[in-house]
């Protein structure tokens, strides 16, 4: 029942997004869409996925879109588009998909092929083979560890890509001026700054909890990384980019991003050197289960470090670009006056 309600809400939000012209509203609705789908994932028993979707769909991606909107303007121009061609494509694709669903196993039925071929082994044997209760973590970090490695590399690629697009060197004087502007806003942000200062340590603590509790409950390196970075992002938003850069500077954060990927890969290399296959954690220790524990701990750490630093890099790149744009505009205005 609850899933039908959530799905209908999702449809309403999607229609809203199609019809809205105000980009700010569109972005907020997208965040709501992410949050609703996260709730749907909880109803579908996918707690890990829900956690991630809430952090990413409703958190980071909304934030990034908002930053971009401040740079590009929030009104969409009401130009004439080609709705008929689009409708044509959409109807064909959708029709094909509906046609495809007709022979699908019914929703929730336990005798569907996916529940009877590969998955049972994960559910039945992972306790003996890997020894941690969260099956999603054991599949993610051990059975299909290479996919997760790929995932870390994807996020690493995105970070480097964003850097390659937006990175711009700042001169010292610019930096100082921008910092001064920010300091002058202290009064304006007083309340929120104080509350944030109280919250940040707890956010960091929570990130560490999620990082290390991933074996027993929902969570893991990726979610922890996102939460950790959100603390830094919050700090940067309120205390200015220059202040945040003094905490984590560009060189250091790049190093950490690279370090995370290397940490993950080195676990694989270590198992190669110990005579196993790549990512075979059994050989990391005398006792296979202990080896699995060690391997999973290390790679989750790698994931967390990379994700946190890449998220910070991405946010810093966007925000840095924005500050420079504003700075240039202000200078222009001064000249014209």
């Amino acid at each position: 029942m609850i899933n039908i309600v959530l799905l209908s809400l999702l449809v309403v939000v999607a229609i809203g997004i199609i019809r809205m012209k105000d980009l700010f509203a569109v972005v907020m609705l997208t965040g709501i869409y992410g949050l609703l789908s996260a709730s749907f994932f909880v109803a579908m028993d996918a707690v890990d996925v829900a956690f991630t979707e809430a952090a990413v769909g409703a958190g980071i991606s909304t934030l990034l879109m908002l930053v971009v909107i401040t740079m590009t303007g929030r009104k969409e121009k009401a130009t004439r588009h080609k709705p008929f061609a689009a409708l044509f494509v959409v109807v064909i694709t959708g029709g094909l998909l509906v046609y495809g669903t007709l022979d699908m196993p019914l929703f929730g039925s336990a005798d569907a092929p996916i529940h009877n071929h590969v998955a049972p082994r994960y559910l039945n044997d992972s306790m003996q083979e890997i020894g941690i209760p969260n099956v999603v973590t054991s599949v993610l970090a051990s059975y299909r560890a290479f996919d997760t490695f790929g995932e870390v590399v994807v996020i690493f690629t995105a970070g480097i890509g964003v850097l390659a697009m937006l990175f711009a060197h700042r001169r010292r004087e610019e930096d100082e001026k921008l910092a001064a502007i920010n300091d002058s806003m202290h009064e304006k942000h007083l309340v929120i700054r104080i509350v944030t200062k109280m919250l940040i340590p707890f956010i960091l603590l929570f990130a560490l909890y999620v990082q290390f509790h991933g074996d027993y409950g929902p969570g893991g390196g990726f979610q922890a990384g996102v939460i950790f970075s959100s603390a830094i992002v919050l700090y940067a938003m309120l205390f200015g980019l220059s202040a945040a850069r003094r905490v984590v500077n560009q060189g250091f954060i790049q190093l950490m991003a690279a370090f995370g990927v290397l940490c993950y890969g080195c676990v694989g290399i270590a198992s190669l050197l110990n005579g196993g296959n790549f990512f075979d954690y059994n050989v990391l220790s005398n006792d296979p289960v202990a080896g699995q524990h060690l391997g999973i701990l290390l790679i989750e750490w790698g994931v967390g470090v990379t994700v946190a630093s890449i998220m910070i890099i991405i946010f810093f790149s966007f925000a840095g670009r924005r500050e420079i744009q504003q700075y240039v505009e202000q200078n222009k205005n001064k000249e014209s006056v």
Partner: protein
Amino acid sequence: MELLITIVSGLFLLVGSFLCLSGGVGIIRFPDFYTRMHAVGVTDTLGSVMILTGLMMQSSDLLVIAKLIMVLLLILLVGPTTSHVLAKAAFHNGLQPKGLSTENKHNNKESSSSNT
């Protein structure tokens, strides 16, 4: 005793839901941004506090109660702050409460360019 706890927690939940709902109605019925903010900001915080308290009574697991208390603290801290920041941002951007004379609009236009 158990019956009493169930009834009390049920009451908490009901009142909490009612408050949240009234906030939702307020957001639709009130005339302008600030009054709407007021409707949601006040009722939502209290409403969720009520709901959380109700839930705490229902659970027997200490860990769950501890987690709920954490959530409660977070809401108490964040809810009012966000309302405050939202209202402040709206005011800084030159949004006038409904019914204010148009003279004031002139004065506030200068500050409309600054943004949080």
